[in-house]
């Protein structure tokens, strides 16, 4: 029944989906593991990154090319990340319900930025020029070169993130802070600086995801909402405890979604995923791959 071209189609589209989700969810997971905060503004940061890249590369006939666009976008994302940390997260570090309060503040930030984007850029659909053009055939499925690029770039970026966290001094510091902020402070790590770096890094990841996906999807002010919701589900599945678990869960989710879309159709796939989610949580409240976290 399942012929090899169907299998190929499911696998390839699943990996394309999974790559996007992995980039998205890793930024969320990074902030979570380090600060214990769930950043709802992550999706809108992705939107902002894509819009800025669009403005630099497409609008006003500037046409500086995507390279510069990505650079400018990344730079602004660093600023946005720092701003979010400073204004709406930092004041609550000592709060009893820091988690709940920051969910609310980042939700507010998300609405603020989303509506702000709509004010500035309008509701008209936009699309980024693809970085790579043409088509690529993988196994028995033809996809656009941009999608192939995402398949390649996502693991590279995630690998770089892993190298940074595992090898560099700053990255190790971030992990130390995530494991025990008090102990990290005791041995002389500048915790507050690392919080800022973490937020900036996560914002850049969101922006890059936006730039990559902005040429295969249409840009609207709600561009980041759907990936954010998927990332929510992924971190529930994968558990929030580790970056590795999140990335694996993201790819699994991509494949699962592709398979469900094929078997039950695009309308019922989200409900099936949610049903599975409830089942998983009933059996393993800490997530499919997760360990018990705070």
């Amino acid at each position, binding site marked *: 029944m399942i012929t090899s071209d169907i299998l190929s189609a499911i696998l390839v589209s699943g990996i394309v989906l999974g790559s996007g989700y992995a980039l998205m969810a890793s930024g969320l997971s990074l902030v*979570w593991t380090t600060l214990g905060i*769930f950043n709802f503004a992550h999706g809108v940061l992705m939107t902002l990154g894509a819009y800025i890249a669009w403005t630099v590369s497409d609008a006003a006939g500037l046409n500086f090319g995507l390279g510069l666009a990505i650079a400018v976008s990344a730079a602004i994302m660093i600023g946005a990340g720092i701003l979010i940390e400073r*204004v*709406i997260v930092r*004041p*609550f570090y000592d*709060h*009893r319900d820091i*988690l*709940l*309060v920051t*969910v*609310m*503040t980042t*939700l*507010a*930030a*998300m*609405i*603020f930025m*989303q*509506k*702000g984007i*709509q*004010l500035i850029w309008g509701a008209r659909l936009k699309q980024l020029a693809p970085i790579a053009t043409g088509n690529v055939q993988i196994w028995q499925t033809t996809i656009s070169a941009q999608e192939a690029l995402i398949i390649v770039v996502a693991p590279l970026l995630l690998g770089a993130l892993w190298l940074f966290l595992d090898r560099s001094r700053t990255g190790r510091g971030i992990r130390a802070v995530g494991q025990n902020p008090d102990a990290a402070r005791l041995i002389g790590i500048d915790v507050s600086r690392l919080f800022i770096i973490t937020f900036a890094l996560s914002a850049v990841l969101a922006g890059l995801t936006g730039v990559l996906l902005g040429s295969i999807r249409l840009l609207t002010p709600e561009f980041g*909402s759907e990936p954010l*919701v998927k990332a*929510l*589900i992924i*971190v*529930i599945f994968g558990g*929030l405890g580790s970056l590795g678990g999140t990335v694996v869960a993201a790819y699994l989710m991509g494949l699962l979604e592709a398979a469900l879309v094929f078997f039950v159709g*695009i*309308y*019922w796939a*989200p*409900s099936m995923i*949610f049903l599975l*989610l*409830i089942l998983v*949580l*009933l059996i393993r*409240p*800490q*997530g499919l791959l997760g360990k018990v976290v*705070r």
Partner: protein
Amino acid sequence: MALHDGKLRNSKVWLIGVLLIAGLLVPIFVQDSYLRHLFIISFVYGIVAASWDLSLGYAGIFNFAHVAFFGVGVYATGLTAKLLGIDPWAAMLIGGVAASAAAAIVALPVVRLQGVYVVLVTFAFSQLVMQLVINQSNLTGGTQGMVRVPTIWLPGYNFLRDYKLGYYYVALGLLVITTVCLRWLVRSDFGLSIRALRDNEDYAVSRGIPIAWQRLKALVASAFFTGLAGGFYVVYLRVASPEVFDFSTVSLILSMVLVGGTSSIYGPLFAALFLTFISEGLASINNFAEGRFMLVALAMIVVLLFFPKGLASALPAILAKNANQKRSRQPVTASADQALMTSTDKENEAEAASHSGVR
């Protein structure tokens, strides 16, 4: 102290009585159909915000699906009234029951989960319901929304005439019933037990409070009222749109709960009345549809930063402080403490005590 408490309670009863009479008299002075519409919408939001306070404020469940329960009520009522031809009055009740059922489904995993997972599951649930509504467009009208929903009726009275007078009293009635029920719930043993679970889970469980069961009840009860409000909302507006599930709707209602202050029922209710007028007033300014949500978001952040117990909570503290300063010059810290204690009712006193406990 006891005398003072009694006085306070007395004045509170008076205040509520006066407000109720004012509420009943409003339509006499307000003839304008749009203004009455604002009152009706604000009553609906008042119900949603106040009932959210039960699960979010009192039970301390990080429930972000409350607005989705409202949406479930909207669509359950709309669909049963329009497609099955059920009497709109009964359909409103169905809306409440459907929202409760949705809450029970969400509660299944949620009562066993901790912290952030509750937030994630409830948010994911909201998005799922929205997806379902959008995807089943042959039933729900999809993103276009559902139109021509039948409205409520009374023998010999047409709700569509009379400048919304009938709707006004139905909305006010629902608001009063909801408030009475919610106040009764939070002051009952049940209310005490969910607050105990919120403030010191381990201790409460060790004293034999069934955590999953109580949380399930809190979610189901708070969803019922919001679903009922959703049912009324759709038979009043006669259209339903998936916008009710939007993140911006969530933030609007959340801002009402925060501005009013959690764990009081009255706070979110009055904040809802107040904010609806401001927000709708702003929306009527040209090209300000986005701007008003940006302001709401800003207000939320400001309140969380500077008035964590709600804007309303700042008022009695300031008043009492002034009174105290006039009366005598006691040591600053003591008088401030005292001012806070006397200005809030007994319930908050208990709360303050439990907050200072080990956690």
